C-alpha cells in the first residue's frame, strides 16, 4: 500500500513522462529466470491482494495526521485492537517529539500535516513499449546490464511474452514453507501470526525511539515479515523481489525479521535500478532479532531518485534499522547507498548476549546535491562481544557525506572489542566529507579502535592508469571500486556486480 503526497511540499514535481515510478528490481537475474505475464500483473496489482476493494481508488484520506488517521489506517487493514493501541501510543509519543536537528543535513521544512497518510494503491501508467520510457532511465538500464524483459517490468511496460507457466514466486513460497520459513507481507503476518508479531514488534526499536520511528510506528503501511524457526538455515537468500506482496509499500515501511536459535538467514533489500519516486518522504523501520547462535545478514542497495543537479526533487530517506543479537548470535549490515536526496540512517546492533557479533559495512555516495548522514551504532552489553564498522564515503559534485557513528561499551561488556574504519574520498572541490564518531567506553577491558582518513584520488594514480591505456573515467571507476572493495566483498555476488556498475554510473561526469 502506498501513500502519495497530495501537496508539492518538497519542491517541483517532475511532469509528463518523467514522472513515473519504478518498481523494485530483482537481484536474481543471474539465475536467468523467466516470468509470466500473470506474475507481472501480480506485481503491478499486488496491493489489491490485501483485500481492499477497488473503490479504494477514490479513497484518499484528506491531508493531515490525527488520531483518526491512525484509526483509519488500522481499520482499513483490519488490524487487531492491540495493534491499534500500539499505533495510538506511538502517535501520542510522536506528537510530543520534535524533529531531530543534529544531523549535518539541510532539510527544507517538512509539513507532516500536508501529507496524506492513506491513499489508494498507486496506479502506474502502463506504457506500450520501451520507447515511452524516460531515455535517462533506459540509458541507466543498459549500463547496469539489466535484461530487456526485466526492464519492462521495472518500467511497467505491458509484457506479453509467453514464458514459463509456473509462477516463480509460488515455487519459492513452497520451498520456504517446506523449511518452515515464514516470509510474507507485514499485513499478512498480523493476520496469520499475530502472536509472533505482537511479541517482537517494537522490541528492538521502541515506539519512542526517535521522531521518525515513532511516526512510522503510528502510520506504517506495510512491509515484510520473516521468521526462521529454530535450527533452520533459510534455503535461499530472501530478497524484496520475492516479496511481491509488499511491493510499493510506500513511505512507511516496517520490516521484522526473527531468527530463532541456530537459525540463519540472508536478506537482500532494495534495488539497483533507479526508483523514480520523486519528492517523497520515506520513514522506514527495520527490526532484527537474532536469538542464540542465530545469524542474520542484511544487505541493502539503495538507489532512490537523488534529485537533479540543482537539488530539486529526490527522496528524503529517514530509516531506523536495528538488530538485537543474543548469545553467540551475529548480525551483519551491509549497505550501498547511492540514491536519495537525503539519507539519515544508522543501522545498529545491540550486542546483548555474550560473544555476540555485530558488523557494519557501508558505501555511501553523495553526488549532485545529495546529503548523506549515515553510520552505525554498536552497543556492547554482553561479555566478549565483537563489532566492526567499515565505512566508505564518497563525495562528488556538491554532495555532502557524513559518517556518524556510536560505539558504546557498557560496564557489563567485559573484553568487548570494536574496530572502526571510516574512509572518505573527495572527488570535487565543492563537496564535503565529514566524520563524526562517538566512542563511549565504560569497561577497562574493552579494546576500541577507530581509524579514519580523508583523501582525494591523486593525479599520479590517474596518470598511472592512463599510461596503461585506460580512459580517465575507467581509471576513476577502478580506483573508486578498489576503495569500496572491502564492502562489496560482503555483498552477495550478483548484488556486488550491480553495485559496482551502479557506482560507475553514479560517478559519471565526476572526472575532471
Amino acid at each position: 500500500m502506498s501513500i502519495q503526497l497530495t501537496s508539492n511540499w518538497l519542491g517541483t514535481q517532475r511532469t509528463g513522462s518523467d514522472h513515473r515510478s519504478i518498481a523494485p528490481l530483482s537481484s536474481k537475474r543471474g539465475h536467468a529466470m523467466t516470468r509470466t505475464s500473470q506474475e507481472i500483473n501480480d506485481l503491478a496489482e499486488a496491493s489489491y491482494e490485501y483485500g481492499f476493494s477497488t473503490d479504494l481508488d477514490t479513497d484518499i484520506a484528506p491531508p493531515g495526521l490525527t488520531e483518526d488517521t491512525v484509526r483509519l489506517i488500522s481499520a482499513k487493514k483490519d488490524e487487531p485492537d492491540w495493534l491499534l493501541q500500539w499505533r495510538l501510543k506511538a502517535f501520542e509519543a510522536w506528537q510530543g517529539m520534535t524533529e531531530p536537528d543534529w544531523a549535518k543535513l539541510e532539510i527544507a521544512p517538512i509539513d507532516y500535516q500536508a501529507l496524506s497518510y492513506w491513499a489508494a494503491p498507486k496506479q502506474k501508467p502502463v506504457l506500450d513499449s520501451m520507447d515511452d520510457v524516460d531515455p535517462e532511465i533506459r540509458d541507466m538500464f543498459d549500463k547496469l546490464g539489466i535484461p530487456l524483459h526485466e526492464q519492462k517490468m521495472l518500467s511497467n511496460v505491458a509484457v506479453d511474452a509467453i514464458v514459463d507457466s509456473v509462477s516463480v514466486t509460488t515455487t519459492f513460497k513452497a520451498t520456504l514453507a517446506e523449511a518452515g520459513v515464514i516470509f510474507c507481507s507485514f499485513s499478512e503476518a498480523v493476520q496469520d501470526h499475530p502472536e509472533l508479531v505482537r511479541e517482537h514488534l517494537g522490541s528492538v526499536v521502541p515506539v519512542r525511539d526517535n521522531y521518525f520511528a515513532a511516526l512510522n510506528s503510528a502510520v506504517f503501511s506495510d512491509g515484510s515479515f520473516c521468521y526462521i524457526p529454530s535450527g533452520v538455515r533459510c534455503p535461499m537468500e530472501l530478497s524484496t523481489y520475492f516479496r511481491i506482496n509488499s511491493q510499493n509499500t510506500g513511505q512507511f515501511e516496517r520490516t521484522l525479521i526473527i531468527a530463532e536459535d541456530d537459525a540463519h538467514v540472508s536478506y537482500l533489500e532494495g534495488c539497483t535500478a533507479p526508483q523514480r519516486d520523486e519528492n517523497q518522504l520515506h520513514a522506514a523501520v527495520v527490526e532484527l532479532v537474532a536469538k542464540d547462535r542465530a545469524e542474520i545478514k542484511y544487505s541493502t542497495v539503495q538507489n532512490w531518485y537523488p534529485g537533479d543537479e540543482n537539488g530539486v526533487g529526490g527522496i528524503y530517506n529517514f530509516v531506523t534499522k536495528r538488530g538485537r543479537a543474543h548469545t553467540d548470535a551475529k548480525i551483519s549490515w551491509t549497505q550501498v547507498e547511492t540514491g536519495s536526496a537525503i539519507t539519515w540512517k544508522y543501522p545498529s546492533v545491540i550486542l546483548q548476549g555474550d560473544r555476540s557479533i555485530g558488523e557494519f559495512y557501508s558505501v555511501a555516495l553523495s553526488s549532485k546535491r545529495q546529503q548523506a548522514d549515515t553510520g552505525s551504532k554498536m552497543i556492547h552489553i554482553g561479555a566478549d562481544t565483537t563489532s566492526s564498522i567499515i565505512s566508505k564515503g564518497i563525495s562528488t559534485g556538491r554532495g555532502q557525506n557524513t559518517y556518524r557513528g556510536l560505539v558504546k561499551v557498557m560496564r557489563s561488556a567485559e573484553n568487548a572489542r570494536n574496530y572502526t574504519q571510516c574512509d572518505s574520498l573527495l572527488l570535487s572541490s565543492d563537496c564535503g566529507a565529514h566524520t563524526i564518531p562517538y566512542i563511549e567506553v565504560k569497561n577497562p577491558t574493552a579494546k576500541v579502535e577507530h581509524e579514519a582518513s580523508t583523501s582525494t584520488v591523486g593525479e599520479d594514480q590517474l596518470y598511472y592508469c592512463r599510461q596503461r591505456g585506460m580512459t580517465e573515467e575507467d581509471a576513476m571507476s577502478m580506483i573508486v571500486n578498489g576503495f569500496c572493495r572491502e564492502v562489496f566483498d560482503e555483498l552477495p555476488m550478483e548484488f556486488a556486480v550491480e553495485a559496482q556498475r551502479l557506482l560507475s554510473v553514479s560517478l559519471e561526469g565526476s572526472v575532471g
Partner: protein
Amino acid sequence: MTAQVATSAHSNPLDLHGADRLDDVSRPTKHDDAWRYAPHDLLARLLFGSTTATAQQAPAVAVNRIPQLDGPRIVIVNGVIDVDQSQIAALPDGLRISTFAGSATEPTDPADDVDSGFAADAFLIAIERFGSGGVAIEVTDGHHLDVPIHLVDLVAPNQTRNTPSRSAVVRLGEKSSATIVETRIGTGPVFGGLNTRTSITLESNAALEHILLQNLPETQIHLGRVEVSQHAGSTLRAHSFNLGASYGRVAYEVHLLGAGGQADLSGLYFGTGAQTLDQQITVVHSARDCTSRQSYRGVLDDESTGVFNGGIDVRPGADGTDAQQSNDNLLLSDRAEANTQPRLEILADDVACKHGATVGQLDDSALYYLRTRGITANDARRLLIDAFASQAVDNIESDAVRAWIRARIGASHA
C-alpha cells in the same frame, strides 16, 4: 561556530542582564556536542559577576605553591592581578606586558560571531560581561624570548562570587618567538570555579610554545578556552596538562588563517576520583598548505571520566592541508570511562587527513614481562603508565619547564 550558536542557544545568549548566574536558557545542555559529558548540575551553581575587590592577595597557604620559574610572572588571584607576587619589572627587550580591567573585547553580539570566527558559548559571554580584568602580552617583531612568560591563576572562591572570569590577550609579532606557561591552581574547600579566555595572535612566521597546566582542587571547576589565530608561516606548539578540578575543561580553537601555518597540539589528562576531564579541540584550516597535529592521551583511574572532542575543519580552498589527530585512552579502573569523538569536517578536495582513537587498558603481557624481571606489580604498572603519559611531556621544548611539569605530574599522581 555559528552553527554551534544556532543549535545550542535556543535564545539569545546575551540574556544575562543583571544576572550573575547563567540562566537555564543560555547555558549549554547535554544536547550540545561540546557539552555532552559536562556536569550540568555543577555548572548551574557557578556564580559569575565582577569581584568587588580592586586588589587581591594570594592566601598565604597558596603562595608557596606558586611555581618558581625564571622569567616574567603574572599572578592573578580570583581574576585580579596580585602585584606583590607578580614579577613584571625589568622585562626583556621586545616584551610588553600590561593589565586591563573588565573584558579585553567588546561584549559579543551574536551577529558578530561570524566576524570573530570563534565559537561563542555562555561562558565566553560571562567573561565578556563579568570579566574582572586581564593581562595583555606582546612580543614585538623579530624578538626571541629565551625565558618563559608565566601566567598563574589562583582561585580562592568565596560563597557569593565563586567564579572569576579573566582574559589574556597575547600577540606575537612577525618573526618573533616565545614560550608562555599558564598555570591554574586553587585553594580552599569551597565550591567554585575559574573561567578563562586566552586569545592569541601569531603574526607571520612567529612561533609560540604554549603550555597549560590545570591543577585546581577537586572542589572547583575549570573552564579554560584558548583561541589562536595563526598567520602565514607561524608555528604553534601547545601542550596541555589537564589534571585537577572536578570538571576540568580545556578548549583550544586554532584558526590557520595564513598559508604554511603549523599547529601542533598535544595534551595529557590524568583523572582520579570522580573527576571529569574534558578536552575540546578544534583546528580550522582556512588557508593553503597548513599542517596540524592533535595528539591527546588520557589515563583514567577510579571513577573518572575522560572526554576528547577533537575536530579538524578544512574549509573550502584550504588545499594542501595535512592534518592528523589521535586520541589514546588508558582505563585503569572498571569504573572509569572514556568518551572520544574525533571529528573530521572536510570541504576541500586536495587534503590528507587522518585520525585515530583507541581505548584500552594496560597490556597484561607487558605487565607480566616486567614482573618476570623482578619488578613489583605496582612498579610495573607505574612504569607502563609513565611510558604512556610521557609522550606529552617529552614534546616540551624548554628543559626547565619540562622538568617542572614532570615533577608536577609525579606529585599529583604519585
